[in-house]
């Protein structure tokens, strides 16, 4: 008996070591390769590959500031800069390492509303071109600006979502059949938001630096958010079971929807903030009203699962904040314009969260026979997509 145990220990003890064996071998192989100078892996032939992405363009009175990122495999040196076919003295000349970034400050008397073509001339004579469609001053990131962005986030996020939640009494009054259609409607809304976030993320990622994965970041963000929410969901179910509470499955679902929509509104805030910072956003009443109508339906999505429950008002407010307030955060991040890579990742997170929410809601639209895609439900889903499509036309930024 003792002998058998000892054998088992001897057999099992090196398990971690066995796991590390390939890692150790890899380390030795890399060390040998480095020691021998990597035979056959010398300098790449051909001219250096120069890939520069313009991450950010900022305009101040008499100044154009570019933030560039080296997307290519080789260091790149910006030697000269021309604006609209004229060489202009600038600060920030020099070499940018792979994945490195650099700020170029160009003194130039740009004129409001006019277009500019900027050419960066590299040390090898290569050129990197970027355009300013209509020049306008980049807003200062001061307290007033963050306040404005917060106000905007509340306008388009918190208020409409909260208003939409006032559909709760209505939801309580309709019968189970109509409720299923409402849930189907919610799925339609969410599906639209998810697809929209992915497309927007891919578009933004495609325009910016590819160094950190470009559009792949959208999908990575989506996958991580989906898996993360799935894990949170499983954890919450397990806790409820352990507490043997009768629980409130409706509240659970509403919470998940609020989180998913919150992550989506983070992306919406990003788009608004980034567009405002770039001067591409006219803060008209029309736009704010458009967003309000668009996002009010999101409030309906949150309260739809609460038909059978009587949650305290405090909880409802919390749900509203959870779904709406991230628009404020998004607007801040977007306006401070973290890199396009960050924005793409966050939009992906929003999309993944929404897919997870749809998966959660899906069972609730089944009728007594277990059918999901009944004519009524299909009509509900289509209506959800349709409503967001139409209200979305109001707010293309």
């Amino acid at each position, binding site marked *: 008996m003792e002998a058998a145990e000892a054998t088992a220990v001897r057999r099992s003890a090196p398990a971690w070591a066995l796991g590390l064996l390939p890692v150790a071998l890899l380390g030795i192989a890399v060390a040998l390769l480095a020691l021998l100078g990597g035979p056959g892996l010398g300098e790449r032939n051909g001219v250096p590959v120069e890939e520069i992405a313009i991450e950010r363009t900022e305009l101040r009175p008499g100044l154009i500031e570019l933030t560039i990122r080296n997307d290519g495999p080789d260091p790149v040196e910006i*030697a*000269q800069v021309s604006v609209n076919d004229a*060489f202009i003295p600038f600060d920030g*000349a020099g070499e940018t390492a792979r994945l490195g970034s650099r700020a170029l400050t160009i*003194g130039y008397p740009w004129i409001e509303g006019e277009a500019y073509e900027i050419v960066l*001339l590299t*040390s090898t*004579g290569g*050129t990197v071109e970027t355009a300013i469609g209509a020049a306008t001053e980049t807003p200062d990131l001061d307290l007033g600006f963050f306040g404005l962005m917060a106000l905007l986030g509340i306008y388009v996020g918190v208020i409409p979502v909260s208003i939409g939640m006032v559909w709760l009494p209505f939801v309580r009054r309709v019968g189970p059949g109509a409720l299923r259609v409402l849930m189907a409607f919610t799925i339609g809304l969410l599906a639209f938001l998810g697809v929209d976030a992915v497309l927007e993320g891919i578009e933004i990622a495609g325009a910016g630096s590819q160094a950190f994965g470009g559009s792949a970041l959208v999908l990575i963000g989506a996958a991580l958010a989906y898996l993360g929410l799935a894990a949170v969901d499983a954890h919450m179910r397990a806790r409820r079971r352990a507490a043997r509470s009768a629980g409130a499955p409706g509240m659970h679902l509403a919470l998940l929807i609020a989180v998913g929509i919150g992550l989506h509104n983070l992306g919406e805030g990003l788009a608004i903030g980034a567009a405002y910072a770039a001067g591409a956003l006219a803060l008209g009443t029309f736009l704010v009203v458009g967003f309000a109508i668009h996002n009010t339906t999101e409030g309906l999505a949150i309260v739809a699962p609460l038909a059978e429950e009587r949650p305290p008002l405090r909880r409802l407010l919390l749900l509203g904040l959870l779904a709406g307030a991230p628009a404020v955060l998004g607007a801040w991040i977007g306006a401070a314009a973290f890199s396009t890579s960050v924005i793409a990742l966050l939009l992906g997170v929003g999309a993944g969260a929404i897919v997870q929410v749809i998966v959660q809601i899906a069972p609730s639209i089944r009728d007594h026979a277990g059918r999901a895609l009944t004519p009524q439900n299909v009509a509900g889903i289509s209506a959800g997509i349709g409503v967001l499509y139409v209200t979305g036309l109001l707010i293309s930024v």
Partner: protein
Amino acid sequence: MHAAFADGPEVDHRANGFEPTEMLRDFDYGEARRLPGGRTLREYSIVARDKEIEVAPGVSYPAWTYNGRVPGPTLRCTEGDRVRIRFTNASDHPHTIHFHGIHSALMDGMPGIGEAQGGGQIEKGESFDYEFDAEPFGTHLYHCHVSPLAAHIAKGLYGALIIDPRQGRPPADELVMVMNAFDTNFDSTNELYAVNTVGFHFQRHPIQVRRDELVRVHLVNVVEYDPINSFHLHGNFFDYYPTGTSMQPSELTDTVIQGQGQRGILEMRFPNPGRYMFHAHVTEFAELGWTGFFEVS
């Protein structure tokens, strides 16, 4: 504010092996010797060589050069001289020298003409002697004529050829300005424009001239990819002699236009001291490097 390159170190002229201001007044008269009968024979030597040069501060360009410089040496002789140019191709590519002037077909530097006699296209490692009588007098140019032609010229294979009239010209401070450009990213449009290769050089280092002294500029346009170029002088006018083939100016003006391969002589005197800009009045070129100053003292 003028358009200009970034503050910082200038082009490394030593590494380039030539300097734009020095090239203004650098004339190659060859090795002269008197032939029986009294004529002068001038012998020049030109080697084509591939060479990385710095065309703007920090911007390198894989040029093809005559005698290691862009533009090539300014060959100077007198009308009626016998001229012999020993050409050696030390580049990795075939080249020729095609002179603008009056000469036989064999001496025209044209691929496909004269290969049997050792001329035509001169391959890597080969040599050929171009020989002709210097005529007509004027300011001319020479360049490679191998296809693709625009590329062979734009890469730097060009220079000025000055044939003085027998009776000479009035003494003057003579300057050679070759208007050139560089397509550094090889997209058949130029990124940099200049006189004597380095953009804004004469903006940083104005050309020193003396008040009331006759200044004679031999102006040659070799810019590829753009059909015309021009020269405009501030605060003054000049006599213009198209191609320099007449002793009578065609015009008193302050702006001339030259197409590809056109050239001429500009004569001026500065009555007032100070700095006077000169630049292409194709202002796009001006702000991409083709701008300079005369400093009159």
